[in-house]
């Protein structure tokens, strides 16, 4: 019998999938060691970046990180010794008014409510294992860095691990580890998440931690300087696009810096300024608390409410991150013009590049609305191509040839804006994806379908259209490269038309269905579901608890109807909404940049999009 035990020893040594820290035949639960988990988190998670779908193990993989790299205050021992429940943690008290108004929830529904302090709460139930996941998502990110302090929000996210008047440094992490849980932090471009997964018996303790995390910061110069060092130790964002390209795609200058390289100016930030920045960027009115646990949502609400009851009443202060220049508050959101071809209301409002123009849907057989063209006639940059009205395009290579697409209605659509940025050899057509699950889901399904489209009639054999998603909860981008086409723009336009209204609509439907199934699969784990819920948009939420279908929140439901693509993410269907990223040296002085194939870019010579397919 014990030959197997010997085998264990061998397996441990030989790494056949079992390391002492990864759980061996003897039942050595990996994070049981708490050792591996110890301290893990902060640096690991942020280092591993973000994922729009939440399905990547970014947070989870953090557990293997060294505590010294950014987990200040975390215990280094294999078994954290601070397991005693915090005596100051309030115990479950009688439910208050909101709890008494909780509707009956079906298993596929989540509870959503905004507390008086402005915190949005989302609770869902998962009973597969006695495990709970708690995520505090704060809608601040490097995108909000003041110009003079690049990397500030990233460093502030770390600073909050240093405790405050209620939490000693590292206590939030130690509390999770003491119960055998895993804590992590994820810093996206516009959202910071503190995540924990714990045995359900520890839920109250962790909820208390989250109710204290953003309060009463203690400002100390020495701690701040250390924190800057920890933040600087993170690896670069693992996305596809460099910061300058991201800023161009989203038309948001705030994204144009490397947020993981804190500027030296931050060390000189005064105590008052630091406190002010913390209060502004990290407060409960900008946060969403997501709880996925085996408990009844009503019970969880009754636990949470008293923990925040002492905070003053505040309006919720979340800015919805919209693509391009339309970054205004949710109240004044304007649907992109593909469906409603109204002009952008204030192209320069966010300091982004003005819109080139809007376009009619390819499916729209009506003649282009002249008003729309007028409206889109906002001042174009010198790089922007002329409107792609048939016959009026300045570059034949970038205008559709009606003879090539006889089955499709005539489409009048401007060419995408060309931006000379990024290292990629071939042009990248990039769309800014709105920061909500449904848009992210549709972008992913769309991308996958493009990758699976068969060659059309007349298309060269060497033609390749490849698509990838640069993932981020709020600032994803869909990226397409066309290799081997004489007129990439025409090819792309035809491919998109085929997807929306042509023969590949069925393929799109199949990919959407497949993706929906995957999203359900990811959401069957508490942490997966909590991450998905943390990126949901909080429109029309009030202080009365409401039951929300989980699949509607997480973008699964819209995937069931291809027609919803045009409602959810109309810009996706139009090249005029895209940005073309080209390598700067290809820019002709004073001339419009051609987006077609250039000399030397023969079939197969195109540089593959780094990480291609990772998002799809």
């Amino acid at each position, binding site marked *: *019998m*014990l*030959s*197997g*035990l*010997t*085998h*264990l*020893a*061998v397996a*441990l*040594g*030989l790494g*056949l*999938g*079992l390391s*002492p820290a990864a*759980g061996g*035949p*003897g*039942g*050595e*639960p*990996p*994070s*049981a*060691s*708490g050792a591996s988990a110890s301290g893990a988190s902060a640096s690991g998670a942020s280092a591993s970046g973000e994922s729009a779908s939440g399905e990547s*193990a970014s947070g989870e993989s953090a*557990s293997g990180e060294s505590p010294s790299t950014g987990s200040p205050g975390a215990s280094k*021992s*294999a*078994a954290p*010794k601070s*397991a005693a429940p915090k005596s100051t943690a309030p115990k479950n008290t009688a439910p208050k008014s909101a709890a008494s108004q909780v509707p009956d929830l079906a*298993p596929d529904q989540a509870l959503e409510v905004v507390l008086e302090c402005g915190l949005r709460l989302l609770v869902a139930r998962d*009973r*597969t*294992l*006695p*495990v709970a996941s708690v995520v505090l998502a704060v809608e601040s990110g490097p995108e909000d860095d003041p110009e003079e302090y690049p990397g500030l929000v990233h460093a502030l996210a770390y600073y909050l691990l240093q405790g405050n008047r209620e939490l000693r440094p590292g206590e939030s992490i130690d509390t999770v580890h*003491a*119960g*055998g849980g*895993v804590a992590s932090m994820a810093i996206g471009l516009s959202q910071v998440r503190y995540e924990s*997964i*714990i*045995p*359900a*018996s*520890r839920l109250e303790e962790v909820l208390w931690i989250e109710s204290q995390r953003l309060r009463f910061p203690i400002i100390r110069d020495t701690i701040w300087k250390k924190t800057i060092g920890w933040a600087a130790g993170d690896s670069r964002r693992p996305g596809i696009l460099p910061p300058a390209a991201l800023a161009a795609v989203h038309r948001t200058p705030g994204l144009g810096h490397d947020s993981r390289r804190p500027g030296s100016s931050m060390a000189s930030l005064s105590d008052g300024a630091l406190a002010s920045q913390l209060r502004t960027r990290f407060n409960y009115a900008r946060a969403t608390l997501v709880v996925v646990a085996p408990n009844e949502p009503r019970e969880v609400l009754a636990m949470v409410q008293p923990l925040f009851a002492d905070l003053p009443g505040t309006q919720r202060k979340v800015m919805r991150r919209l693509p391009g220049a339309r970054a205004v508050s949710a109240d004044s959101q304007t649907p992109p013009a593909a469906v409603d071809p109204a002009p952008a209301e204030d192209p320069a409002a966010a300091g982004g590049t003005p819109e080139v123009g809007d376009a009619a849907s390819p499916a729209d057989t009506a003649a282009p609305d002249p008003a729309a063209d007028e409206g889109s006639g906002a001042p174009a940059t010198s790089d922007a191509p002329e409107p792609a009205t048939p016959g009026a395009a300045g570059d034949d290579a970038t205008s559709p040839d009606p003879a090539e697409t006889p089955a499709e209605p005539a489409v009048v659509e401007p060419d995408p804006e060309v931006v000379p940025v990024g290292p990629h050899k071939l042009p990248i057509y990039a769309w800014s994806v709105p920061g909500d699950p449904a848009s992210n889901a549709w972008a992913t399904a769309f991308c996958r379908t493009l990758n699976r489209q068969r060659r059309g009639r007349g298309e060269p054999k060497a033609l390749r259209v490849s698509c990838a998603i640069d993932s981020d909860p709020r600032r994803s981008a869909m990226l397409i490269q066309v290799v081997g086409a004489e007129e990439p723009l025409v090819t792309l336009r035809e491919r998109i038309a085929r997807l929306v209204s042509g023969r590949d609509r069925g393929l799109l439907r199949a990919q959407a269905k*497949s993706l929906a*199934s995957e999203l*359900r*699969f990811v*959401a*069957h*784990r*508490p*942490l997966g579901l909590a991450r998905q819920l943390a990126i949901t948009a909080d429109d029309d939420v009030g202080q009365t608890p409401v039951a929300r279908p989980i699949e509607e929140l997480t973008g699964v439901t819209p995937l069931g109807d291809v027609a919803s693509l045009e409602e959810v993410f109309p810009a996706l269907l139009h090249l005029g909404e895209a940005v073309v990223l080209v390598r700067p040296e290809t820019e002709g002085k004073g001339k419009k940049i051609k987006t077609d194939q250039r000399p030397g870019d023969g079939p197969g010579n195109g540089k593959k999009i780094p990480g291609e397919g990772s998002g799809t």
Partner: protein
Amino acid sequence: MITRRALMVIAGTAGLGLSLGACKRREMPKVELLDEDGTPPETEAISALAPPWPPAERVVLSNDLLVHWLTEEASPAIHLRLLLPTHGQEELPRGAAAVVAEAVAIELRRWTQRYGTTVELASRVDRYEIAVHGQGSKMDAIVAGLGRVVAIQEPEGLLVRARDAVAAGLPALDAEVLALTALVGILDDRDPARERLSKETVAALEPKEMIAAWEALVDPKRSMLVVHAGRPVDERSMTRLAKAWSRGGILSGIGKADEQAIARLRPAPQGRAVRGKEAERSGSEWRLRGSPKAPLHLLELAPEERGSLLVLGRIMPLPTVEDRARARLAQRILQEEVDARLTIVGDRGLFVVKAQIRNGPPPSDESSGKDAKKKDKKKDKDKDKDAPKDPRAAYLVDVLDETREFLRARAPRLRLAQAAELWLGARMVQASLTGEDWTALWSESIDLSMNEGEIGGALARDAQAMLAIDPEELAEFSRKWLDFDGGEPGWAWVAASSEPDIAKALGQIAKVTPLGDGV
């Protein structure tokens, strides 16, 4: 004398019998709920530390494959875990089982990846496990993929690829592997070389050897399948699987197969364990520094081989759930001080402590967090004229003394509770992070069970027993089974080092017995 006619009648009857038997075997298998013995009542504490699975459905398919099926209503996921026992296959060449398991995983990945699955290969005591995790909506396709893999008739090409993959992934044998295999070999009277896999060993495997291993291991009569799905036993897909994996049609019904999971997965006791009274000793009859003193086995490594360490350990009987819980908790507490491992299978546990051999100050000097008592003890020790002169030996003595004192001490109740909650909580959290896969926990439950009926409640009982441990009980258990100087005999120790004069240094601690290459 049997006439020719009589022979024909006998042959005809036998043939008919076989046919009838075969027909009978092909009937729809009977699905039954697995009985559960002694599952503790669900208290709040236990329910938070054990999975809430319902009683498993148990079915033996017509090809004798044993299936345990766990249903979680409306789960969008499916998890399949194929368990391939390796015990009783001593005639197979070294490494062949690993190659076969790798081959199954490779091919399963190939057949199911289009459905978005992930396939993992794990090694547990006396078995390999290949798990597939996918979407419930793709269950039929995934099971069909499994059926294709296990039904492969000509696996040579696949096995060659698997052999290359295994060989490429194997690190060089280091001091730790050599020492651990030697230790377990001594404790269980086995050939340790058999358990050491090297690139060369695996790369030298011949196709015919690997094919023989495939036929021996990928056998539905020996194997077991654990399923976690969103619906009850899917008879259609299981019937198809049985048909695909029939191993020769009509003859598939011949031969006896164990219908109990534990009987399939756990070998019958052998080696020292069956030699009468010695079974009580569970391994060697020595203490490390008490009487009778165990020889210190030494593996002298070549200078280019790195590492220098000492491993010590024992096999201990763990007949009750309380014993198993005490052993686990003792190990968890000890692990706060030294590198201690525990592997439990059924009623036996392998306990191993590993210590690096260092040429430096004693560990008590390295840590600033030690309390005053330890410092005082060290001072006393320094005065001891019998202390080894060699710093490496002195270091080891210090480690051993501290470990022993730690084991003899009584841990406060709060500390035990913390350690238990950490262990039990981490088990659930880990299961959640790796996909909420009940099959992995079920596999662990099997190892913690003594009979079929205990499996369902094994983790709950484990949690209950760990949370209920009294400090005195634990101290007594530790003194009896883990005190290598004064407790029950049954200890062995092995050092592995490439340092030239290590034998002389270790000779200051115990009588050193060199181990040859084969041990």
